[in-house]
């Protein structure tokens, strides 16, 4: 028998009360006639030794009432023998197989699969098993089943992936699988037990109730590994004379080694060099890219020959040697200072992937905005209606527009295209000075972050823009008025700047933050921000900026399979990157490559410390083991004794009432 709420047993201490009452209560002594009291003394019973317990039956009943009450509250349960053979309760075996990248090292995967097979074969009568694969996320491959054939078939379908392992995800999945009706569960974790798979908080490893942990480690401490764990450099090679790529080779071995690293571009070796790698060190190296083909190229850095874990011997990046994206700058005059400053800033930016075209309002009628990656309207008010319509359609299809106000916009009281209400220009005053400074900025917004919130800029004039529903103001002036407003139009994005782009209303063009402000605003509005030269497995590929022309987008994974269906190519906004390699992105803008690399943490094969593993196992003994012993199996539920105790309690109360009444009558002399 066990107690579900043993602390309630402390209530049994109340049994001392009736004992005390029966022992210490001042009672009415029997009156006796006696010949003389001359030899007596008045003396009451003062010591416990002189007192005697009286009304023993009544006392026993009262004690029984209190003890039964305390026992009933402590929820006693009577464990019935489980239905399993020989008294052993059926167990649910949760076989979690590590399919992360590191399991591809040497023969680790084969060992793991064999171990899983042994567990399946060793299941007892009444046991069931469920197969889980951990990588890239935890997937449940089978329902709980006693059928070894089903389990083996699911096991055969598994192979190591490029994903990273996470023990926290495994435990989270086990928590969802183990419920009240599961009974006792045994988690068999078959893994190389990499330390990098440990979660940040040990709390995430705590096993659920009625679950014990059995660790099956594959691999050994002596396994060494080398990997290229980073790649960076000039991935935008257009216009660069000597683009260079830099990589790092990391050693996860106690042995120093000399490794040959090669640069591969579109399947051809473009360079090779020998690198001495000391034990447990990271060594940088670099390659000149040389002549890259036009458009996008698939570039790889490889260790040759491959080691025992070949999956991390290669790191990929997409080289972009395509023409610069054209930007349209519309101003009152193409020779104004706003054009001059903007062009200079754009060309000065490190990623000069844009070519600037300028036009006046009068020239807009012949221009098609869909040809441009982004349009800038600098203090423009009277836009031809035909261009406005084309611009609106392009914008809602995913285009990017930067609108800067100025004297003309202030006079018109409305911003071009978006129609935001703009008030009269305000003279900025801050104390005795005639300018306003930028105030709070959203750190998470890339434009505000790159331009440091425009903090050094003095704004002598600005126009107050009235925000609409859904608008946000990433940067505000110190007085709280919005300085940069982000407005969403369909899938497109509009940034409204509350001051001018020349140096009349402010000194922005002559401050250091102007170039990053212009460059980041261009990247933000053209969608280049979401396009990286390389991504890590598990990242998300944004498709919105690639649909500016309104056409579909198709994504082909590294194995050559289409990721999107026909409808998905039109509607899907993002695609998860689940395989290492190069994804092909086909859109109206042409062919594009997205390099996807495995997580470099997966290359470190160092196992978890044994003390930590022991601690992890003990969470099962504390949280699950004891409970598992107390509640053997849901199919044979324990007898809950509180109902029986309540019946006994009622009987005891009844008897106590009857007997107490008899004593009361006796005292009254009835």
């Amino acid at each position, binding site marked *: 028998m066990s107690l579900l709420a043993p602390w309630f047993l402390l209530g049994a201490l109340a049994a001392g009360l009736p004992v005390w009452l029966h022992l210490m209560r001042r*009672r*009415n*002594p*029997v*009156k*006796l*006639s*006696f*010949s*003389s*009291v*001359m*030899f*007596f*003394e*008045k*003396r*009451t*019973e003062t010591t416990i030794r*002189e007192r*005697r317990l009286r009304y023993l039956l009544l006392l026993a009943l009262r004690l029984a009432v209190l003890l039964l009450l305390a026992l009933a509250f402590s929820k006693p349960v009577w464990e019935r023998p489980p239905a399993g053979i020989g008294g052993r309760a059926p167990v649910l075996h949760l076989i979690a197989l590590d399919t992360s990248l590191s399991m591809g090292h040497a023969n680790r995967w084969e060992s793991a699969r064999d171990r899983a097979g042994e567990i399946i074969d060793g299941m007892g009568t009444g046991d069931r098993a469920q197969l889980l694969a951990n990588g890239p996320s935890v997937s449940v491959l089978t329902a709980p089943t006693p059928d070894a054939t089903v389990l083996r078939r699911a096991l055969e379908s598994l192979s190591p992936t490029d994903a990273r392992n996470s023990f926290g995800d495994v435990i989270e999945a086990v928590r969802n699988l183990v419920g009240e009706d599961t009974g006792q569960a045994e988690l068999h974790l078959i893994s190389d037990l990499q330390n990098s798979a440990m979660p940040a908080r040990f709390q995430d490893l705590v096993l659920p109730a009625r679950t014990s942990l059995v660790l099956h480690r594959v691999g050994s401490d002596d396994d060494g590994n080398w990997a290229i764990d980073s790649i960076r450099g000039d991935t935008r090679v257009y216009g660069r004379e000597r683009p260079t790529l830099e990589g790092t080779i990391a050693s996860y071995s106690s042995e120093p080694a000399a490794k040959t690293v090669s640069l591969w571009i579109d399947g051809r070796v473009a360079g090779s060099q020998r690198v001495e790698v000391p034990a447990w060190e990271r060594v940088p190296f670099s390659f000149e890219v040389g002549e890259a083909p036009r458009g996008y190229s698939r570039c790889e850095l490889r260790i040759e020959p491959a080691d025992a874990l070949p999956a991390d011997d290669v790191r990929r990046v997409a080289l972009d040697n395509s023409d610069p994206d054209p930007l349209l700058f519309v101003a009152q005059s193409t020779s104004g200072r706003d054009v001059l400053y903007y062009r200079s800033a754009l060309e000065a930016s490190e990623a000069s992937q844009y070519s600037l075209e300028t036009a006046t309002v009068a020239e807009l009628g012949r221009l098609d905005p869909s040809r441009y990656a982004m349009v800038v309207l600098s203090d423009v008010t009277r836009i031809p209606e035909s261009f406005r319509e084309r611009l609106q359609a392009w914008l809602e299809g995913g285009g990017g527009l930067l609108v800067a106000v100025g004297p003309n916009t202030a006079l018109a009281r409305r911003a071009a295209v978006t129609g935001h209400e703009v008030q009269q220009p305000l003279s900025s005053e801050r104390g005795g000075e005639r300018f306003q400074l930028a105030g709070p900025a959203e750190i998470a917004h890339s434009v505000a972050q790159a331009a440091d919130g425009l903090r050094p800029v003095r704004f002598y004039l600005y126009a107050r823009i009235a925000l609409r529903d859904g608008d946000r103001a990433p940067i505000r002036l110190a007085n709280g008025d919005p300085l940069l407003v982000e407005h969403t139009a369909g899938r497109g994005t509009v940034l409204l700047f509350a001051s001018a782009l020349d140096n009349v209303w402010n000194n922005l063009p002559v401050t250091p933050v102007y170039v990053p402000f212009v460059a980041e605003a261009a990247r933000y509005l053209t969608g280049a921000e979401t396009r990286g030269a390389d991504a890590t497995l598990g990242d998300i590929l944004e498709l919105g900026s690639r649909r500016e022309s309104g056409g579909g987008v198709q994504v082909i994974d590294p194995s050559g399979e289409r990721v999107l269906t026909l409808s998905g190519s039109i509607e899907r906004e993002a695609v998860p990157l689940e395989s290492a390699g190069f994804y092909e992105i086909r859109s109206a803008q042409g062919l594009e490559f997205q390099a996807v690399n495995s997580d470099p943490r997966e290359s470190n094969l160092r196992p978890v410390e044994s003390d930590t593993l022991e601690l992890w196992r003990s969470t099962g003994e504390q949280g699950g083991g004891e409970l598992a012993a107390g509640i053997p199996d849901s199919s044979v539920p324990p007898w809950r004794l509180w109902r029986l105790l309540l019946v006994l309690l009622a009987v005891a109360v009844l008897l106590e009432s009857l007997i107490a009444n008899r004593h009361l009558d006796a005292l009254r002399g009835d």
Partner: protein
Amino acid sequence: MSRQQLLDPSILQRLANIELVAKTVVDGFLHGGHRSPQFGFSQEFAEYRAYTEGDDPRFIDWNVLSRTDRVYVKRFLGETNTHLMILLDCSASMGYGSGETSKLDYGRYVAAALAYLCTCQHDGVGLVLFDEEVREVRPAQYRPRHLQSILHVLEHAEAATGTDLAVPLQVLSRLLRRRGLVAMISDFFADPEEVVRSLRTVVHQGKDLICFHVLDRAELDPGFRTAALIEDMETGEEMEVSADFARRVYPGRIREHVETLRKKVVSEGADYVLLNTSEPLDLALREYLLYRLRRR
């Protein structure tokens, strides 16, 4: 029924007639191998003694003188014509009895037996019933009908109120002017010094006093198993007494009281007999007869 059983108070209790009780007691006591009371209380010859100067010449045995030419005087067993005055305490405390027989019943049996015994021996017997004052008085006489009168008084004796031992003794000095025997039957719940002070007058008057101290068995050892609220039968005073006190302290105190009373009474020249109401009455009769012999 054996002789001893005839003396058992619990059996005597069942006899309605106190005269029958007295006869039963005395006959039961005298039956068998005891000295005849006639031997002790008649004028029978006892012994010869050589004549010495000063002896009464009336007691010279002339026959012996003539035969042996020696002078002897005859000695007799002594005077038999005496009076017994019985003083019976009828206070409320005498009404106490833990069994079937109260102390007053026991005292009445003793008094009746003594009266009957005296009558049989041709001694005069009187009776005084008292509590705080004298309730009944029967002067000491030897007449055939006198015993009936005494037994009648005893039969109707009831426990009344308090006790004052001095009162009957003052009456006694008026009723019994000559030497005689005085038997006081009481539970003596009083200060021994005070008791002796009262008795001293009687002793100094030359009367022979025997005190029958009647106590119930429960008075010697209450044996309370629990605390009790006891009520004094004379004063009505109530007192809560613990069982521990009743078991451990009280018996010592009552024994000390009995012993003190015995010593003081004996020191005054009187005799003292402790009677337990649970014991047969022969002790009282035996003590009386022995005392009667000693005072000859």
